[in-house]
């Protein structure tokens, strides 16, 4: 294909899939939050960055390694999310989208500013956990064990979220509350708690992705603002509010980036936005979105 040797093509697709795993986990959280809260959560990147940073802080100051971080950090950041939702966001649900966007954008600037002031921008090193060091030879490339783990963990967490939303009683309440909050309340469902839980869940997904990212990239105050534009594009391409769409599109965009890096590297950062423009022109509701969005 395009005169590119097959092993290199396969390698790039593999790497694209792994990067797509981050996009999928991040955009899944965004899509959930948008679906239920009607809030475009611009703070998502900052929460992802906090995920990485808390993992580093746990290791540096408390001696708690990667596996603890994987469990503890989403809980810590989830609590921060809880505070944000209870204190700030819930006043905005009946207002125009732009208010939620402005508030969360401002929040992300404040959070990033605090971390930049204290830790700089070059980032802190976070080692790959011992059990996941090394890698295996796939024939067409060397695949580090850690990257394989990232792929598996992301797919796992996305599947788990999907099962919870689509197949459990809790998920059915959630969907009912999204479709018609007033009716759901009439049936005795506590809609405000469901909303809080959804925000916390979305935030925990971002923090989880942040911990996964810590050993790959430097843990730095700007890691969130690097990924967030792409993640927003992913949600738009997938269709606002569509959970499956967000996940599938996350992986799709990862693959697209991988191919672009191979064929015309300078366009890597632009390719996803070109796709977004094309999709918005041809199918404004997004690849998997419903028409009324």
């Amino acid at each position, binding site marked *: 294909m395009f005169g590119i040797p097959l092993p290199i093509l396969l390698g790039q697709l593999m790497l694209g899939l792994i990067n797509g795993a981050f996009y999928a986990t991040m955009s899944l959280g965004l899509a959930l939050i948008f679906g239920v809260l009607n809030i475009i959560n611009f703070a998502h990147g900052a929460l992802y960055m906090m995920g990485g940073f808390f993992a580093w802080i746990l290791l540096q100051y408390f001696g708690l390694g990667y596996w603890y971080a994987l469990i503890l950090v989403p809980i810590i950041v989830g609590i921060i999310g809880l505070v944000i939702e209870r204190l700030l966001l819930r006043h905005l649900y009946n207002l125009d989208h732009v208010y939620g966007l402005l508030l969360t954008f401002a929040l992300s600037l404040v959070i990033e500013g605090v971390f930049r002031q204290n830790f700089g921008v070059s980032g802190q090193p976070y080692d790959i956990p011992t059990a996941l060091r090394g890698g295996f030879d796939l024939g067409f490339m060397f695949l580090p064990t850690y990257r394989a783990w990232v792929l598996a963990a992301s797919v796992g967490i996305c599947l788990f979220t999907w099962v919870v939303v689509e197949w459990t009683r809790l998920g059915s309440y959630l969907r009912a509350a999204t479709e018609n909050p007033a009716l759901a309340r009439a049936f005795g469902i506590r809609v405000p708690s469901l909303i809080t839980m959804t925000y916390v869940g979305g935030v925990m997904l971002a923090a989880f992705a942040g911990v996964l990212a810590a050993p790959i990239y430097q843990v730095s105050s700007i890691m969130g603002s690097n990924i967030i534009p792409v993640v927003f594009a992913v949600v738009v391409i997938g269709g606002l509010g569509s959970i499956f769409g967000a996940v599938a599109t996350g992986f799709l965009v990862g693959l697209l980036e991988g191919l672009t890096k191979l064929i015309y*590297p300078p366009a890597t950062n632009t390719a996803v936005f070109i796709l977004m423009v094309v999709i918005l022109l041809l199918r404004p509701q997004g690849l998997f979105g419903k028409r009324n969005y």
Partner: protein
Amino acid sequence: MRNLKWHLTLIALLLSCGAACAQGIAVKIGVMNDQSSIYADLSGLGGVEAARMAIEDFGGKVLGQPIQLISADMQNKADVAANIANKWYDNENVDVIVDVPNSAAALAIQEIARQKKKLVLFSTAATSELTGNKCSPYGAHWTYDTYALAAGTARALIQSGALKWYFITADYAFGHQLQSDTTKFIKAAGGTVVGSALAPFPTQDFSSFLLSAEGSSADVVALANAGGDTINAIKQAREFNFNKSGKRLAALLMFISDVHSLGLKAAQGTILTTGFYWNLNDATRAWSKRFYARRHAMPTMTQAGVYSAVLHYLQAVKASGTKEPLTVMKKMREMPIHDFFAANGRLRPDGRMVHDMYLVQVKSPAESKGPWDYYKILHTIPADQAFRPMKDGGCPLVSH
């Protein structure tokens, strides 16, 4: 009616204050750099602090009046930088702009300074174009440039037998110029460039580019990028077992803040070229310790360069008794630069400040005696070999 007249007079007086009040300040120095994006640690507030130290060491006054320092964050964006420069020169009576990371921004400010007939002293910007085709009687380039990096690192690698090169290049003015300057050395030595990839700036994930580079026939894969890009690329090269491929990885530009961030375990063995290292001699140690007390980090070469440039500028203003830009610049060229940063520096007519550069290797964790003890000096590159000869630069100010 009479009241109105008085009011108008008062307003007129206040408005005229812009120019008149500025006369109460001898010189106004504007440090412009990246304080929030990927170059914030290697220039940023550390650069502002270095300028402040220079003003303090000079005595805080020149021509009998106080020196004023202002600073701004150009967010690593060329358009923001150009806007600030216009505002500073036109409305805020800034006499000299200092530092300016990002070659694209620096090239824009070089032109603005030329139009407005004001001075600019570059420290963090790297492109050698600033003293080549785009040289200006109002601009000086202090710390290093893309040619000096190539002359140090590339020359050393070529001498060790690496003749086939692959570039992973940051896709903007700086990366292009660094690749182009390095390529000249490779070609002159009979080597070849077997491939290159232009990576968007900035990039988080370099694994795809590293994979393509591994698939090439190169002896050495050169990173023509800086800051966070270089850090991520080196970190990921380790993750993907790059050294098993038998190819060497060369970072053409690396700052001590990058090494500090990566940690010695990941950065050890890297060969790089630098214009300054804090632990060179008593003078560098003394100044750097003062800097450390204020910033809690050792200075990078560009921060030390800001100090040197500002101090030399102030000495030239004092010596010439005026702040008229061309007179001061003429004096800056006449006076030798002699401080902890440059023991034998001089400013050439094309705007290049030439001084010794150092080829260093990053120590292993075992070799390092403590925090910030990072470099082994392999070789001092004398000033006359470290920088591009004036006749080869194509600077229109210099008669050939």
